[in-house]
């Protein structure tokens, strides 16, 4: 009846996951009850859960990422604490639990923090920057988000029901095969990622179509803001790379569920094929995460230097070059596995070549700042912190790209330090920069500056104190993922890293505090102009938060830095006091399709993990029925009448003019 599921799946003998799960469950219940008591459910259902508005979906993606950051961060703290104390001792985490934690940490941070954070920011901002009213496929967008949430949910369910994979963030066979991992851990991994992978693919298709087919009048390719370009590149990579992940995990699933022999040791299976396939996805994945961050830094550096981005065209070229070369370097993840010197040399050289366009970008940002009037607001701090940190991470990456050096450093903490250096330094700093930069656009008030700056400095210093020691420990020969160790020389570095983790945790806590403080002080921090940073692109041309239709009249773009031109023009000729010609606007209706579909996906995923076959069928039928019901509806759009558009827009313009008059700009 319930497949493999019985009471033994609940880890009653392990206090740590039980207590953690208890706390999480309690927090969720408390929030649910609070929302129920306050009567927020109808509002949440109407305005958020069923929303197909790209801004709302973007915000929900980012919220998911931030909650998962807390979960993944807790895993990180536990691991660092374990390695701080586990010298000549077993520490406080038993090996099988430690293995689950490092697997969950990597999986969560990449798939449920990095991905939703950048996809959320792209969703929120790209249609605004392109000057359009929505993404190409609004309902599909909602489906994509909720499927990602399903994946995150399933991974967290594994905390209480059953176990998570002990195979690392990528489940290398033969360890991940049924013979060596008979539990449900790897199944939790594969099914959550298959489901959330579909969500990611949907988001990728949606955003590529949006950038290529939905741009406002006059927004030619070479007038798009840099963030739109990096969005395009990143989502092209999603479309080309995520199907590889889907196929590879499907093969692993077939091995585990039906006794196929793709990656087994017996009957001709080929383990190296898994390595090649998973990294053919895995390396582009790195750039899927980092390219949007590069786009954010481009926007932030240009805005806060009050200068046009230096070398815009070379930046576009570098972005697209990275997009292509990122598919030609995957083998550098397993130089040591015997491909031979010729193959290794080719991939080593390709890996060094990809550093060139990245270097071009760094110089472009530096030259954008050069001679500019740089304002050191929080987003700019994150950007400068990124430039310094990322250069170090990039250089250690070039070291690892040299095959002979890689033979020594492979699988050591040096490698761990390197990829944290680039992923934290670029993706996370970029996400934080984008979060602080665009928060006022999404909510109409800025984030508190003082706590933001404190959070930045704690995170920056904490990062160096945590990860620089790991480079040293790696050079001293310490391999990654050690549950305990007996080498005295490593000990001080582990303690230093532990102290750094405390600083990082304080940084995260300060960001949470910043959110609370800002919400409490929102009236002081209110932005009525829609343009709090003196921005240059079209998202600042509408109010904050933007109305459902984004722009009352679709803007007409005449050059790069579209909004900057509008402002200059307006200052010279006082043009924006003319009343535009308002028309009725058609907007897509909200739909619960995404949420219901994800509900059935969750049921199906859980049933597949536990081999509850009737429930799998139920989930599949439910998902199909959901689509049919969606396809059957007669009205998929509603009309906002011109008078209403005019009313909203007049209020916005009045507030904006008042603020500009106050600043003495509008004359």
């Amino acid at each position, binding site marked *: 009846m319930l497949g493999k599921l019985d009471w033994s799946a609940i880890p009653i003998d392990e206090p740590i996951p039980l207590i953690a799960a208890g706390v999480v469950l309690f927090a969720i219940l408390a929030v649910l009850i609070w929302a129920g008591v306050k009567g927020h459910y109808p509002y949440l259902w109407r305005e958020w859960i069923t929303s197909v508005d790209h801004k709302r979906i973007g915000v929900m993606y980012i919220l998911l990422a931030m909650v998962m950051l807390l979960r993944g961060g807790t895993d990180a703290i536990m691991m660092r604490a374990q390695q701080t104390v586990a010298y000549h001792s077993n520490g406080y985490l038993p090996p099988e639990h430690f293995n689950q934690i490092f697997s969950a940490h990597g999986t969560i941070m990449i798939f449920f923090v990095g991905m939703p954070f950048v996809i959320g920011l792209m969703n929120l901002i790209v249609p605004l920057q392109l000057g*359009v009213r929505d993404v*190409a*496929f609004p309902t599909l967008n909602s489906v994509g988000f909720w499927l990602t949430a399903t994946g995150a949910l399933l991974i967290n369910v594994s905390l209480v029901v059953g176990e998570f994979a002990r195979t690392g963030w990528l489940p290398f066979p033969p360890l991940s095969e049924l013979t060596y991992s008979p539990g449900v851990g790897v199944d939790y991994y594969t099914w959550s990622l298959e489901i959330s992978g579909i969500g990611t*693919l949907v988001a*990728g*298709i*949606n955003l*590529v*179509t949006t950038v*290529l*087919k*939905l*741009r*406002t*009048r*006059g*927004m*030619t390719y070479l007038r798009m803001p840099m963030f739109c370009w990096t969005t395009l590149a990143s989502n092209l990579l999603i*479309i*080309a790379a*995520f*199907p*590889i992940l*889907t*196929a*590879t995990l*499907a*093969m692993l699933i*077939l*091995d585990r569920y*039906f*006794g*196929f*022999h*793709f990656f*087994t040791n*017996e*009957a*001709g*299976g*080929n383990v190296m*094929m898994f390595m090649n*396939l998973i990294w053919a996805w895995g390396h582009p994945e790195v750039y899927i995460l980092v390219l949007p961050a590069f786009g954010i830094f481009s926007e932030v550096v240009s805005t806060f230097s009050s200068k046009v981005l230096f070398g815009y065209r070379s930046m576009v070229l570098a972005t697209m070059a990275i997009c292509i070369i990122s598919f030609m370097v995957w083998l550098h993840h397993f130089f040591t596995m015997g491909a031979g010197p010729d193959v290794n040399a080719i991939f080593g050289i390709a890996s060094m070549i990809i550093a060139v366009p990245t270097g071009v970008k760094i110089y472009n940002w530096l030259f954008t700042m050069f001679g500019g009037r740089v304002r050191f607001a929080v987003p700019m701090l994150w950007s400068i912190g990124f430039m310094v940190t990322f250069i170090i991470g990039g250089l250690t990456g070039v070291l690892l790209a040299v095959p002979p050096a890689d033979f020594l450093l492979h699988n050591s903490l040096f490698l761990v330090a390197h990829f944290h250096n680039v992923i934290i330094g670029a993706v996370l700093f970029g996400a934080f920069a984008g979060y602080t930069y665009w928060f006022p656009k999404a909510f109409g008030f800025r984030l508190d500056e003082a706590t933001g700056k404190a959070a930045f400095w704690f995170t920056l210093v904490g990062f160096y104190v945590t990860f620089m020691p790991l480079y040293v420990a790696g050079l001293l020969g310490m391999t990654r993922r050690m549950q305990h160790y007996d080498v005295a020389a490593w000990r001080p570095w582990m303690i230093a890293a532990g102290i750094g983790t405390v600083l990082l945790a304080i940084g995260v806590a300060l960001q949470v505090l910043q959110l609370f403080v800002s919400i409490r002080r929102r009236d002081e921090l209110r932005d009525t102009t829609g343009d709090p940073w003196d921005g240059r692109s079209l998202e600042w041309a509408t109010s904050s938060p933007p109305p459902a239709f984004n722009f009352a009249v*679709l803007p007409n*773009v005449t050059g790069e830095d579209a909004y900057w031109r509008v402002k200059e023009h307006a200052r010279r000729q006082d043009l924006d006091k003319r009343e535009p010609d308002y028309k009725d606007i058609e907007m897509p209706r909200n739909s619960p399709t995404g949420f219901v579909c994800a509900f059935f996906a969750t049921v199906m995923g859980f049933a597949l993990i536990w081999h509850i076959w009737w429930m799998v069928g139920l989930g599949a039928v439910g998902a*199909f029925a959901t689509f*049919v019901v969606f*396809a*059957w509806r*007669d009205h*998929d759009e509603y009309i906002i009448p011109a008078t209403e558009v005019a009313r909203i827009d007049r209020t916005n313009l009045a507030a904006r003019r008042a603020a500009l008059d106050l600043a003495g700009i509008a004359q």
Partner: protein
Amino acid sequence: MTETTFAYAQGDPHRLRGIQQAEVAHEGPAPKRIVTAYGFWIFLLSDIVMFSCFFASYAVLLGQTAGGPSGAQLFDLRSTAAETALLLLSSFACGLASIAADVRSARWFQAAMALTCVLGLGFLILEAREFADLVGRGAGPTRSAFLSAFFTLVGCHGLHVSAGVLWLLTMMAQVYAKGFRADILRRMLCFALFWHALDIIWVAIFSVVYLIGSGA
């Protein structure tokens, strides 16, 4: 409703609206029909990437028969040729259905779609028979890595055809219930793209798996 008028009856059949001018001065968001079809093309691309992984794994594992039978001993080219014929004919019927939808002929549309469905089901039955026969002869997917890759590649295509049949029946019901609405015509466009793409993949499977495989 302008986007639902006869596509091929106009001077600009693909609604490119003058690509040359669009390069110089971008005219704004594309109409829905273009956006939908474009997005679906991108989905098909991603699907083809997924198939390419299964093709690659098949190529890698081709020789790994683990002492079991190889393709030359297993494949029956006559049955495969019949499958190919059924699938290509079903694509032709699907093309007829698209034309019928363009001229708003519900009767011809339903007839052509029903024919597509029958031919597609015929393909699926032949494929299921082939699979059952192989398993019966002890050459199931668990026998060797080669057979795992074979069953996965061909079976994945078969699953796509099955999903296509489900979609097809839904389209027939929808046109019956709602008529040729703009959004339904857009879906029909996507369905036709999907069905033809499955043909392309089958041609690759026929060549790479069956033709090369039965020779070796």
